[in-house]
């Protein structure tokens, strides 16, 4: 197997829904510890692209490689265990569970702790290490004051932060963030940028960020891909791409 400098390589992904081509020959790379953005108008296929990387949708053509290995055929949860964490545009929280339980269940899915028989003996009480990991992560995304709230009572913005925290609990190498700032106010989305910086600095986690908030894109990414109507329009350093007239036209609808 040839070695690759990339953490994630999506090669020539094509996805079709019936007769509609949702993704057409989309290739994208993320390096280890790199911060990459992905923008495009609604319906450009960004979420579909995420879904085909995480395995929710099987691409018609194309391969997905992660850390050099071909993961195109793997199950969603196997990919997650390899180190691909993600958040969702439409939140996928576990309703009825508290913030603490969310983080704990993600942590245990990662560490493999907890079986039916050990439940009978210990009652599934979290150990001190687990407890402190959960509380630290909650503090990182500023949810420590809501840690025992049931998620159904959280606001949209807090829900997004919780999704991020839940993904972080599995200690991913790559985070796929699907519009994490929608529903956050200005202060919260600046905090989000700080969290992302911190995660990258401390754990050298790479992330791929789908976002409409160009301010956040500027703050939090180094490289940027632009999609339009299912194909890749542009890629390159964030500032350069954002200032390109064709990108401005596609993304903002303004003919520059």
């Amino acid at each position: 197997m040839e070695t690759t400098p990339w953490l994630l390589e999506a090669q020539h992904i094509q996805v079709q829904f019936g007769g509609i081509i949702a993704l057409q020959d989309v290739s994208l790379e993320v390096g280890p510890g790199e911060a990459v953005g992905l923008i495009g108008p609604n319906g450009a296929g960004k979420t579909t692209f995420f879904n085909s990387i995480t395995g929710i949708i099987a691409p018609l053509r194309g391969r997905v490689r992660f850390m050099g290995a071909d993961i195109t055929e793997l199950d969603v949860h196997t990919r997650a265990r390899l180190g691909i964490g993600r958040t969702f545009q439409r939140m996928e929280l576990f309703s009825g569970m508290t913030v603490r339980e969310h983080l704990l269940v993600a942590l245990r899915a990662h560490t493999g702790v907890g079986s039916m028989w050990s439940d009978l003996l210990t009652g599934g009480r979290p150990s001190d290490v687990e407890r402190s990991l959960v509380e630290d992560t909650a503090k990182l995304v500023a949810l420590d004051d809501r840690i025992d709230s049931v998620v159904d009572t959280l606001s949209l913005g807090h829900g997004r932060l919780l999704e991020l925290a839940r993904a972080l609990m599995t200690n991913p190498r790559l985070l796929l963030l699907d519009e994490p700032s929608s529903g956050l106010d200005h202060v919260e989305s600046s905090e989000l940028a700080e969290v992302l910086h911190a995660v990258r600095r401390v754990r050298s986690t790479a992330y791929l960020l789908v976002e409409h908030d160009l301010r956040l894109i500027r703050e939090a990414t180094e490289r940027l891909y632009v999609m339009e109507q299912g194909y890749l329009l542009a890629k390159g350093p964030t500032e350069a791409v954002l200032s390109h007239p064709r990108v401005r036209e596609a993304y903002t609808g303004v003919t520059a």
Partner: protein
Amino acid sequence: MEFVALLVAGVALGCVYALMASGVVLTYKTSAVFNLGLGAQAYAAAAIFYTLTVDMHFPILVALVISVFLLSPLLGLALYWGLFRYTQGAPETVKLVVSLGVLLVLPALIQAVWFGTNLKGNPPVAVPGADRVFELAGIRIGGDSLTTIFAAVVVVVALAGLFKFTVLGLRMRAVVESPRMVQLAGINADGIASVSWMLSGFVAGLAGVMLAPLFGSVDVSKYTLLLVAAIAAAVVGRLSSLPWTLVGGLALGVTQVVLARYLPADSVLAEGLRPSLPFILLFGLLVFVPKYRTIGGVTDPLSGVDPPPKALRSPVSTDTHSKRNTFGQALLITCGLVAFFSLALSDVWLLRMTTAVVMAVIFLSYTVLTGIAGQISLGQAAFAGAGAFTAAQLANHFDFPVFWGMLAGAAVASAVGILLALPLRQLRGIYLTLATLAFGLMVDQIIFPLENVGGSPAGLEVPRPYQYNIFDFSDDRAFFILCCGVLFWVAWYVWRMRDGATGQVLDAIRGSETGAASVGIDPGRTKVKAFAVSAAIAGIGGALLVSLQGRATPAEFSIAESLLWPVLIIVLGARSIPAAIFAGAFLTLLPELLRMLDVPQPLAWVTVIFGLGAFIFIKNQEGLVDWLLRVTRQTAGRTARDPATAGGVPAVAPPPVIDLTPQPDTNVQIGAQAAFPTASPVGPSVGVAHAPPTASERTASHVAAEPAATVRRRRTRYRPWSPPRRYLQAPAKPTPPQLQTSIEALRRRDPTWQPANPSSWMRPSDDMNRPQHPSTNGGGSSDGAPGNRRGPEAGPN
């Protein structure tokens, strides 16, 4: 020649299936309810028709008009306005439980009120003169077959045409996508849904009346089978295509009739395969056609603006991990109760009490599968039966001690559960439930009647556990204590699991399979685990039950129990262990109570009472028992400490509002309906997202600083608008004068302002179903920011 006649008979049967199936598709398409109650509606029509013709001697045509054309649509309408209107936007579970309630209540009510449970044989054919036999080129064809085929084809084709070619059909399809969006587009969603429920009621009634003579009797269980056949046909049409549904129904009917003729009549295969073909088809389709594995439920595009759906339960108390003394307390209380009951009760009541305890064990199997893992199984009696018959057969043929037989029964039931769950693990929600229903019917019809499984209809004898002279449970009191012990341990196990790591993983699956997979939990494996544990518990319960009664009969574990049990436990509280115990008590003791009160038809009334509970479930989804416990605790004033539930934030007087609203004379009137402050140019705001302006939005500085697109303004006092008929047909008109004036008025105030894209305001394709008014026509703002969503998209286009 004979084959052609056979074919005609098969087509007739298939047509009835297709009719019923189109009713299923109709309600699923237009109100996203998978209406299991259609079986009951068909039965109701058949019962009314029978009563009118046979008992009251009405002419057949009059009876037909009354039962099918009048009462059936009315029943459909009543079901919508009485029940299913309130389930809009509710989780699939709720809709399913409610429709299951209809399936149980309606026939039971009819039987209890006038029809009785006796079999009513030889129902009349619905068309006068249809008992004539026609001869065409030497083939003898029954007139009833021909009329059935004719009626079914006419109805299905008419429905398909309605969906495809009419405005009403277009709107019906739109209502599914999002009732709220359609309402925003100015269409009366309730009206559309009413029409479709009436239609589906009519179709079900027609199928019911036409089917009765084919079965030779008016019998509830036949209508459950009809329902499953119809579901299979509807699944062939992917729950949306009426032509394919017709094809599915026909194929099913023909195959069934042809198989009946050509398979040797005395083989087990013929006996079992023919009636159960629909379940096998349904199961096979769900399991082997990959499309169905990924279908989610119908989702509302507007649900993005909703808060997340309510959980199926009250929040878990946050200190679950600190309850250390509960085990000791529970043990003490249980011992006390057991001692009291075993000493105080008379023999008869002791037996009833034991039955209640055993049923509680079976109900705990739902706690694991439905309450914690969120999967609704309609085949649970099959697991209980597996445990029971394993113990019975081992005891009868191998002289196996019943004590070990029960454990073997649990193991076998668990294995059956795993075998079922393995192919089903990719299915979600309603599809998984349907597959368990097909499985339950299959086991009920094919497996349990086998001599090697269920023995004869009279049943197998099962002794009480007796081992080594020490463990002697043949005495009723001793057996009662044994059952209580089993219940205690199972409850303890379920409780530990629910609050432990496994329970959290199962909870996560219930909350969101996609989310769970994204953190590395394998949803399939987890579901298999839940099925295994649940089936094992049901198996122990089943084995205890037959050992209690001394006899194991297949009728004890029929599909009827599989349908009744989940309704009862879900209504009482699927997650709650006390609820399982209550459910056992209700199920056993309520019929006795009614019998003591001399109520006629007590069993039917019990079903009615339990089924009615399903309707309470619409409003109260945490389960009655949990709700009662919470309310009692709240009135005792002990939960006030929890700020999340009690809203315990101390009230502080808010500072006065900084009111910078311009004076009235500076306002610009737009169409005399909405007033906007002049400081902000009126950005065409998005019609759906009218959040009330926040405090910061209200301040003038903010308004001045922000570009128009980001300020979303609430439409004040905006009358509900329904489009006049001419808007629906006439081509676009030029800007209405009053709008033109307001544009000019705006320009006078701010010369630089102009509508974002004037041509998009009045695009002919755009104005079909929405007011020609800037605040709902979401043509973008000048910079086309991401908020630039168009208005109601789900309207017909």
